[in-house]
């Protein structure tokens, strides 16, 4: 690999290890067209009771990151490197059998499309019973009781009778709830939610996000929430990873990301979205161009072909040198060559007033 041997500046406190720590994770796929660098050196940490948001446009590597944490690339052609430290173990290195014991029990996942998790030929209830019994040595009766409790807990009306329904008999929102019930039936400590509300109406999204928050309080779980919606991030997350072209380009607490962002891509996301909560602007301010190819990743800064602020960097560093993800203050890291003082000035003088 190129210049990425920079020291790992993970925003992690040195005194203790976080509940989940991801260090310099890369996932590369060899393909006929070349090496797809779907995820390239991302780092973050999540504590129990906290929600980490991963935000970025489609193809930026969000799902591949979550699949890596779930160990879903094991046994495939994918080249996974870096560390995923979870309860004292490195998930990158453990074997598939060990991973299988964690999956569904300690770590669970929900998806955008519940039908990818629910089998059409089995009743919703029996699928949750099975998910429970894989990890818990209990009778069918006990598992059924637990399942009905869970269905009730996630807000499915008449859980006794809905237990025997098939997935297609549920509405979109109800299916999402059923999938959440299945993911949470074993009390996982870490829940990964990959665009859990993207296919839903905002009214149903509000219900589901509310439910996830309640459940998080109840079970003290850590949540990784993957989304492309900055509104959802503002509503639910404590910390945020902004991904672009497979890389983490900015990491910080939710207030830093929304009130003091420093990476031009984060600025671009904020200026391009129409907002309901601000004075209406005459024109939206898009980022020009298209997201990069992950096979021919731009040299230098991965964002440089679309960046409107390169003039603030002397010489052609943007095009030739890959910037490190550097902490500007504790817990806020930025991958950009512009001088931090200049970045702050651009944000407060140019960008913020235009939002």
């Amino acid at each position, binding site marked *: 690999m190129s210049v990425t041997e920079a020291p790992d500046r993970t925003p992690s406190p040195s005194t203790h290890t976080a509940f989940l720590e991801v260090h310099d994770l890369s996932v590369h796929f060899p393909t006929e067209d070349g090496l797809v660098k779907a995820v390239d050196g991302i780092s973050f940490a999540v504590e129990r009771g906290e929600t980490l948001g991963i935000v970025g446009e489609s193809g930026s590597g969000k799902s591949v990151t979550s699949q890596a944490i779930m160990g879903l690339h094991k046994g495939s052609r994918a080249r996974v490197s870096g560390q995923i430290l979870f309860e004292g173990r490195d998930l990158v290195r453990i074997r598939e059998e060990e991973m299988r014991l964690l999956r569904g029990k300690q770590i669970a996942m929900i998806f955008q499309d519940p039908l990818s998790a629910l089998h059409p030929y089995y009743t919703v209830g029996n699928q949750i019973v099975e998910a429970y019994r894989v990890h818990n040595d209990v009778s069918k009766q006990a598992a059924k009781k637990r399942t009905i409790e869970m269905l009730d807990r996630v807000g499915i009306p008449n859980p006794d009778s809905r237990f025997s329904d098939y997935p297609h008999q549920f509405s979109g929102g109800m299916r999402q709830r059923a999938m959440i019930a299945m993911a949470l039936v074993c009390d996982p400590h870490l829940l990964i939610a990959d665009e859990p509300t993207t296919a839903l*109406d905002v*009214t149903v999204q*509000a219900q589901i996000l509310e439910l996830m928050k309640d459940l998080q309080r109840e079970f003290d779980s850590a949540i990784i929430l993957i989304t492309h919606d900055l509104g959802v991030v503002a*509503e639910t997350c404590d910390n945020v990873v902004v991904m672009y072209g497979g890389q983490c380009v900015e990491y910080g607490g939710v207030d830093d990301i929304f009130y003091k962002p420093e990476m031009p891509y984060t600025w671009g996301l904020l200026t391009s979205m129409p*907002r*309901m*909560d601000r*004075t209406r602007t005459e024109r939206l301010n898009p980022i020009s161009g298209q*997201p990069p190819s992950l096979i021919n990743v731009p040299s230098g800064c991965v964002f440089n072909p679309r960046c409107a602020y390169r003039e603030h960097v002397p010489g052609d560093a943007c095009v030739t040198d890959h910037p490190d993800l550097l902490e500007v203050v504790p817990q806020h890291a930025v991958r950009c060559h512009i001088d931090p003082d200049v970045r702050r000035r651009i944000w407060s003088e140019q960008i913020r007033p235009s939002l």
Partner: protein
Amino acid sequence: MTTIQSADGVAPIHPAADDPDALLAVNDLKVHFPIRRGIFFKRQVGAVKAVDGVSFSVRPGETLGLVGESGCGKTTTGRAITRLIDPTSGSIRFEGQEVARLGRSQMRPLRRQMQMIFQDPYSSLNPRHPIGTIVGAPFRIQGVEPEGGVKKAVQTLLERVGLNPEHYNRYPHEFSGGQRQRIGLARALALQPKLIVCDEPVSALDVSVQAQVVNLMEDLQDEFHLAYVFVAHDLSVVRHIADRVAVMYLGHVMELTDRDVLYTEPMHPYTHALMSAVPVPDPAKENRRERILLKGDLPSPINPPSGCVFHTRCAKYREVLSDAEKERCRGEVPVLETKRPGHFVACHYPEARQDIALAEDAGVEGETVA
């Protein structure tokens, strides 16, 4: 109410459709899809009331936003206006001419004036044709010979929507989602229509690309004096692009008014719920917002609730109204009425609320983490 000569004879015209300057006036439009059963003889056993008495108008050069949850009838309304499907009843007037019951051949000259674009441009672009052929198709179908020839006209169009005219011979799969939407726009523009019905045109696009396409649509509107019926479920996008907005629920228009009025003082409890559910990209505002959660699922349009179709999920009904008032909600259909000038609301107990959309900058400064 005035009356006009509609296709059914003399029908009352709803004030929301009563605009002498309207390019498009839709009055009491209904689209019911029959449900048929039976082995030898299919008989109708019911109907999906997808659109159930919708009225609105659109002026030349204006954008009317159509919002609401999925299944509320937005697409069906758009398809009925452009006559891709037949309305069950009601009137659709385009430049004063009744078009609701015109046949295919009678519609042909009007197709030049009214176009439609879709959420997934890919599914509406023939994958086996190069984009030059696709964008030029309207000329051939309508038998129009543009000045300088079809190829030149197509290249001008491609350039106008921000595509490279040299890519005339490329196929749809060679373009990204945003570029395909541009191709769809170029095709829709070919015959210089006066109205484009846009069905979720930017819903599938990433936010940075979405902004590019929204800006393009606004430029094209100014340049060609286009009117848009802009169907979307994203209320923030609609606030940006629309001049007026109709909020739909279960086949009905619940509220219809100017964009600025709707987003500062929405009156219908459904609009309140819908707007309060949109998460805004500001953590401090998110923390102090009241969210009006809707209970339960959308009822079926086959068997919609009595009285106000929204009463089964309405927070006001559930938490505020007296038993006598509730009875009215269950028993009497609220008509879409003028509650304030130009502000139509279909609710027995509407209430202008300024705390919902947060469309003001108030307080932001103070809350910013210093």
